[in-house]
């Protein structure tokens, strides 16, 4: 039991949380399961086509192309493409991780992949449009333009902070994934 929990601390934490909730008020636990179920369903609805696209991307787009378009020397074009891919996406951020992994595996630059992830998380066009309808164009644009600038700088700085040595290990790990 202790051994299991040391290895799967997260799961044990969740289970203890659920037990505690059941003690306080069992309806909370039911609600939590209900929410979990709805979230899983809504994810299962949107995620399968994303993985189909990831698979096709993997077999059809050659490594050379990715290196040229998003690799070390892709410059501003690489960032632009990363933005485009992130903005024209759908689905939760978690679905972006495997796609980002395939990009890295095929030789995309870390800075670009990180930027792609950041854009996916909050500057996806469908979400931006929804945001505008809810918050008004002024407030929404202010948020999004600021975040865009932050993400560009953040991606550039993160790669610098990461350091050459660590990046090399990182790329190696990405390439080793199947």
């Amino acid at each position: 039991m202790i051994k299991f929990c040391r290895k799967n601390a997260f799961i044990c934490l969740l289970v203890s949380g659920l037990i505690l909730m059941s003690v306080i008020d069992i309806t909370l636990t039911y609600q939590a399961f209900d929410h979990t179920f709805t979230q899983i369903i809504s994810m299962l609805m949107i995620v399968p086509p994303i993985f189909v696209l990831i698979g096709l991307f993997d077999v059809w787009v050659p490594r050379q192309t990715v290196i040229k378009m998003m690799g070390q020397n892709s410059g501003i074009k690489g960032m632009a493409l990363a933005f485009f891919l992130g903005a024209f996406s759908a689905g939760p951020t978690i679905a972006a991780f495997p796609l980002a992994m395939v990009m890295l595996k095929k030789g995309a630059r870390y800075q670009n992949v990180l930027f792609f992830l950041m854009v996916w998380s909050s500057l996806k066009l469908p979400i931006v449009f929804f945001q505008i309808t809810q918050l008004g164009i002024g407030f929404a644009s202010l948020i999004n333009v600021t975040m865009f600038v932050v993400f560009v700088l953040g991606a550039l700085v993160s790669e610098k902070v990461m350091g050459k040595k660590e990046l090399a290990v990182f790329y190696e790990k990405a390439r080793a994934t199947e």
Partner: protein
Amino acid sequence: MSTEMIVIYGLAFVLTLVSFLKDPLKTKQGLKKGMKSFMKLMPVLLPLFLFIGILLTLITPEFISRFLGEDSGLLGYVFALSIGSITFMPPFVSFPLGKELLESGAAYPQVAGFLVTVMSVGLVYYVAESRFFSRKSAIYRNAVSFIGALIVIAVVMVVFA
């Protein structure tokens, strides 16, 4: 069915068809690869969704609006940023909530800070993200997003002052 779903299903369908016409074997390989990476995500996903389920139960919109409102001051900011970073909320819940918060008198910068962190800082995803990439990379992405939220708060303060 939302537009984005129709588009993404359509795109996947058309591309699979084109791919199949060009090379059935390669297509099969691709679909298998996609399936594999989906399966790889699953074990991380299930506990994650349980966590999200618990969060959605405990941290409800009512709970948040109780703390973010008129005169909540500095504590309101701290609360907005921490709840936004920790919790998960689908966009179709978080943005209407943001609107509601504004209407009930919460300050614009607070709501902005909450919305930015809820979207981009995903501590919920931390385990999955560090497994896929690296711990450091996950920390960087979340840190950049969090700093972004602080900057957004400052910008909104200046503009909406």
